[in-house]
């Protein structure tokens, strides 16, 4: 921790150390820029309209909600809603375009156009095929995979009907979507329609606009994100618990440090594979290194951490700091959340920045385009470049040794398994634990880290407080990176810091109190987890009404907005940190909280105060418990309602209920 009397920029102690080192060496980071460049107060709250060139119009002033108008006459509510919708569309595009590439990769593998990858998880392929009503028994694996890929690809360009995966949701959740007309059709169609409706002079009713926003976000969650997660599992394996490490200490002094950064798993998978080949290790040795150390950043890191235990240097705000260690020989980036600042910063070190996506180039970076049919070739080229750069490493940089071990790799499938094994796996134990008051509720801790606050600090605060309050956390993306870099993703964390009920559950299963589910695109896993909880019975029979909350305390990306809205549309109250991007309009705020809650049992709040965030989350959880008539949460007091069964009671047990299904007699 810093001993100075100046504001902390990052809540990560080693991050703060690097920041200070950077300051003393006159190197600028996002933290400095954030200090210098305050957010535009009009744009920040959604009051700036720039959808046509009569403006930009600032809808400000006294009684702006009632009186302010744009040149065209647009109200503040219209403008705020439109701006918000465009964020949803952008976020949805990001996940879904990534997802489309995944589907294309699956197709290329299935048709043999690429031979570098194989279907690694046939069981998951069959599971997905089953959901998609694709015959799989007795067929060639690649035939099935081809049908799966093509079926998914239809979801992007689908014009009518609904997305394939909508049917995965609990029936009551689907009914709500149908009732209010937010069942998504095609992913691209929803995005295009959103862009159309938010163009000048089209849709102006804030509620009507926001309804389309929900539909677009659902196309993201139950389309883009979920498809991406599943295809990635099929191609590279469904994650299972795995050990890894986090923070800057993962870089090695005597090995080639090859870092993958961004969001896509495909090239990173190839880099991991090629990077562990003897040929490449020998090459590294020929350059004076002892080997090749692959590390990650942001969500590409999460993808390869979940499946290979590749260590992570942390989330979004760590990318510049990583370079400032002076230890990164090559930083390969793909898409999303890559600060363009890194190329300029890297010039002060030997670090090579390599852009790889045909969609994303940065001035002064080396561009080695990812050949999706020959990923290993690209990977080899990048790794060679990293090895070649190793001899150029100097002593310059803020060397950090701190790192934390962690357990990651919690897929929905494994979470089911861990609660009963191959034969008895189900969500019954979790639902039981919630009903009995051992676990107060579940929070999805997600979203970015942000230099506008003491970065990762709110994640850490919320995480600590929640587990102390017996709330089980599932985390993704930079939320996971924040917790991992703080040493929170260990089973010991439960024994030392969780409330007594949560501790018992973690101890029984052997889990950390925070389950790392993967990248931000893997927030879809939270949807399937919530669905499984609903289907298991005993709590709510839809996603709405569960003692569950989503929190993105340090969000900054439009993707986070898309994710938040798809959770709200699915029935989860969501709390975002920071200023509200619709804060200028009371009406839009009201719709997104009260109206959405009434219709979808979800809501979207923006709350900058971490303590209030926490209180709001616990309040939602306790109210949901009360509505479900669950035992009132009291720390340290829990236990199942015991019903002793005589013979008459046993005769009326519902026959043929699903495994673990609670029945009336048990209730």
């Amino acid at each position, binding site marked *: 921790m810093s001993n100075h009397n100046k504001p902390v920029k990052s809540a990560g102690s080693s991050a703060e150390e690097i920041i200070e080192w950077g300051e003393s060496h006159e190197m600028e980071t996002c933290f400095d820029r954030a200090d210098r460049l305050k957010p535009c107060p009009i744009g920040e709250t959604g009051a700036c309209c720039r959808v046509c060139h009569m403006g930009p119009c600032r809808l400000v002033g006294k009684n702006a909600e009632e009186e302010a108008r744009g040149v065209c006459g647009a109200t503040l509510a219209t403008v705020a809603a439109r701006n918000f919708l465009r964020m949803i569309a952008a976020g949805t595009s990001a996940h879904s375009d990534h997802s489309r590439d995944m589907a294309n990769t699956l197709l290329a593998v299935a048709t043999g156009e690429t031979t570098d990858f194989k279907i690694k998880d046939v069981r998951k392929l069959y599971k997905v095929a089953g959901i998609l009503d694709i015959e799989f028994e007795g067929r060639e694996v690649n035939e099935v995979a081809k049908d799966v890929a093509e079926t998914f690809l239809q979801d992007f360009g689908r014009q009518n009907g609904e997305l394939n995966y909508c049917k995965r949701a609990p029936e009551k959740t689907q009914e709500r979507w149908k009732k209010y007309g937010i069942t998504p059709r095609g992913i691209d169609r929803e995005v295009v329609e959103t862009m159309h409706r938010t163009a000048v002079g089209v849709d102006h009713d804030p509620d009507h606009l926001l309804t389309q926003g929900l539909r677009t976000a659902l196309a993201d969650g139950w389309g883009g994100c979920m498809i991406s997660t599943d295809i990635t599992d099929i191609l590279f394996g469904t994650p299972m618990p795995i050990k890894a490490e986090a923070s800057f200490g993962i870089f090695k002094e005597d090995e080639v440090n090859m870092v993958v950064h961004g969001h896509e798993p495909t090239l990173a998978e190839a880099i991991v594979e090629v990077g562990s080949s003897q040929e490449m290790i020998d090459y590294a040795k020929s350059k004076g290194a002892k080997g090749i150390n692959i590390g990650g950043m942001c969500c590409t890191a999460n993808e390869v951490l979940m499946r290979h235990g590749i260590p992570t240097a942390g989330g979004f705000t760590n990318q510049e700091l990583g370079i400032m260690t002076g230890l990164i020989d090559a930083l390969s980036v793909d898409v999303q959340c890559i600060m363009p600042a890194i190329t300029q910063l890297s010039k002060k070190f030997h670090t090579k920045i390599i852009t790889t996506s045909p969609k994303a180039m940065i001035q002064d970076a080396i561009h080695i385009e990812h050949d999706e049919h020959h990923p290993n070739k690209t990977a080899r080229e990048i790794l060679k470049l990293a090895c070649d750069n190793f001899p150029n490493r100097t002593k310059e940089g803020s060397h950090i040794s701190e790192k934390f071990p962690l357990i990651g790799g919690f897929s929905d499938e494994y979470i089911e398994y*861990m609660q*009963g094994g191959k034969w008895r796996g189900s969500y019954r134990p979790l*639902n039981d634990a919630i009903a009995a008051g051992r676990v107060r509720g579940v929070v999805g801790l997600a979203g970015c880290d942000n230099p506008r606050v003491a970065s990762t600090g709110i994640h850490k605060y919320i995480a600590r407080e929640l587990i102390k309050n017996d709330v089980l956390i599932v985390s993704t993306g930079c939320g996971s990176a924040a917790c991992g870099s703080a040493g929170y993703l260990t089973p010991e964390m439960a024994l030392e810091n969780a409330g007594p009920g949560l501790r018992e559950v973690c101890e029984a*299963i052997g889990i950390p109190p925070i389950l790392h589910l993967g990248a931000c695109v893997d927030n879809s896993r939270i949807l399937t987890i919530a669905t499984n909880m609903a289907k298991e019975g005993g709590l709510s029979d839809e996603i709405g009404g569960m003692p569950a909350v989503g929190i993105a305390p340090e969000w900054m990306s439009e993707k986070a907005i898309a994710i938040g809205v798809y959770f709200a549309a699915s029935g989860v109250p969501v709390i975002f940190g920071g200023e509200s991007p619709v804060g200028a309009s009371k009406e839009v705020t009201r719709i997104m909280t009260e109206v959405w809650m009434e219709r979808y049992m979800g809501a979207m709040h923006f709350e900058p105060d971490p303590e209030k965030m926490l209180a709001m989350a616990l309040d939602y959880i306790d109210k949901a418990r009360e509505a479900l008539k669950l035992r009132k949460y009291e720390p340290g007091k829990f236990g199942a309602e015991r019903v*002793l*069964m*005589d013979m008459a009671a*046993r005769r009326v047990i519902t*026959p043929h209920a699903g495994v673990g299904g609670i029945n009336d007699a048990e209730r």
Partner: protein
Amino acid sequence: MSKLIATAAINAAHGLFKTAEEMLDKAIAEKGKDFVFEFPDTAFYLPQIYAMTAFPVKTLADMKVALEMAREMLHDAPEDTLWKPYLGEALDSGMATLFCEEIILAMRYLNGQEPATDPETGYVYNGFITDTIQRNLGIQLVDGRMPGFAAIIGAAPDDDTAAKIVRELQEKNILTFLSGTAKDKNGNVTNVTQQLLRKGVELGWDTYIVPLGPDTEHTLYALDWSIRASMIFGGNKPGDYKANLKYTKDRVFAFALVLGELDDVKWSTGAGAINFGYPAICDTEVPVIHPTGVCTYEHVEVELDHDKIVQRAFEVRGLKVTVEKPPIPVSYGPAFEGERIRKEDMFIEFGGQRTPAFEWVRTKELEEIEDGKVVLVGTDIEERYKAGGRMPLGIVIDVAGRKMQSDFEAIIERKLHHNINEAQGLWHMGQRDIVWMRISNQAYKDGITLEHIGTIHNTMTHNRFKSIVDKVQVTLYFDEKDVLELQEQARANYKERDHRLAGLTDESVETYYSCLLCQSFAPSHVCVISPERLGLCGAYNWLDCKAAYEIDPTGGNQPIEKSTVLDEKQGRWEGVDKYLQSNSAGAVESLNLYTIMDNPMTSCGCFECIVAIIPEANGIMLVQRGHTGETPVGMKFSTLAGTVGGGTQNPGFMGIGVNFITSRKFLYADGGIKRIVWMTKNLKERIAEDFKQRCEEEGVPDLMDKIADETIAEDSEKLMEHLANVGHPALEMDPMF
């Protein structure tokens, strides 16, 4: 903490896998991979492996395949720090343990080492539990006589504690399995079986105490037994492991009492049992697993107080046992019914052709009798009793009640046998005027008096027939003169009752009864019971059901209004169909009571015998539960039973009660008893008298001689030869199809 348990379970699974592999490889080397193995009298191969995977292990080579399945369930033990989750892995290791134990025990059978013999006492353990025993117990499982199951693993700190715990379980009607060993408080390795033997406790199925074997691995036999219940009674398919394990969790109220220290194999076997939903309650300081979900409540619990351990186990398993016990100075309950009293242990006896004796239930008006009164009539009763030996005994039980009907006298009377037998140290056999009773020396020492006989009948008649009986008065006659005189009156009454019963036909009543007792185990099965067709378990006839309904209008026997006849010959009624549609969990749409060919009755699994069609003979065969030989359809009873149970309709196959064979409605639509071409000798003897009468009625007095049995034919070819030789009438009848 639970990590210790997981570590133990995971490690033990590796060890057991290795043992199983070595034993199996040795057997294959000696006997060849195609060597056929089967456990005694089961149609379920290696039942645990079969229920989970649907893979039928028939040969040693098959066993090798099954063992490989177990290998896939082995995992690494969790590390000391930064461990990965271990619960799922530990439970898988538990399942692997059960697979390996099943193979190890099979190998021991193969080597002639099972059932095991206790080296100290020569006591032979039960070993594998056969399908026959399983089905024999069917009705007890559902009527409350066996509401739960305990597996005691290890040893109590001393013999007295062992006896006390087991006695308490017996009094609560819990069937107890014994296995494993542990150190007692003096550090000697022993087990509960040896401890009970030392205390002179009678062991066996009849007394609800079943020693399976001296090793922890023998616990598998109990699990093998319970998983078969799911397939036999629950109608769940092999391989549908989710359904099978949900069945055991929801319906088989079993738990483990682990006495003494635990080793890794105990933990891994316990982890296997947790897959079934069976928790473990330990009497030593071990880690607990309290969060619920795989089991209904706690998974592993500690109770150090042996006075509380049984009660704690009930709570942990969610088991409710209501026991009604008369005020007598000995233990009481069905677990004591099976006790025998040998001559040298006997203090006094009544009846049994040695002295005149009878028992008789009479209906009286309410004001004629005094409730709870026991009257002893005779000279020098006290002195004669104290002297022991034998005495005449006439028991007259007068009952009165607003809902009492004379039809119920026989029902109440049939329970007198159980009333007496369930008392520890009292033994009863026969009924009416052929009764035989004994009181043991121990029971006499414990303070049993002659008056207690009346007290037992008084209390239990009230308990069993609550809303029928308002007053019960018992008079016991001890003088030969009185007994003989009253016996004559009783006989006249027996005769009258029999006549009345004979006149009771399906046509003479408007109401049949359902029997849903088995739905606690066979959720989609409904027995339809008419005056001329008793329940397939043989335990419930129409009058029983009628009385049961009077006793408990919301209980397991419900009236079914026959309503419109839809098919007189086949025995189909609108009311019956309607009832079944709404009470069989959608399994049965329509029922024909008098045929096996078209929508026949379903079975729960505890049928007394099976009727099966032999197409080439144009007739049917009958085989009873417990017959282990081949039958002309090419299947043994145990295999045949697998195709009949579980609440499904299987034209051509049906489970029935033995007495139904001599009913006029037996396969009435198919041609009746003339269709019987084969039945076991045992059955022939059991029904001989009534069958003879039925043959005469049907105009085929020599039918019994024409029916083949196992001494004549055990296969179709020989059977056909025999039928042709004797000119069996079935050959001339209309085709069954």
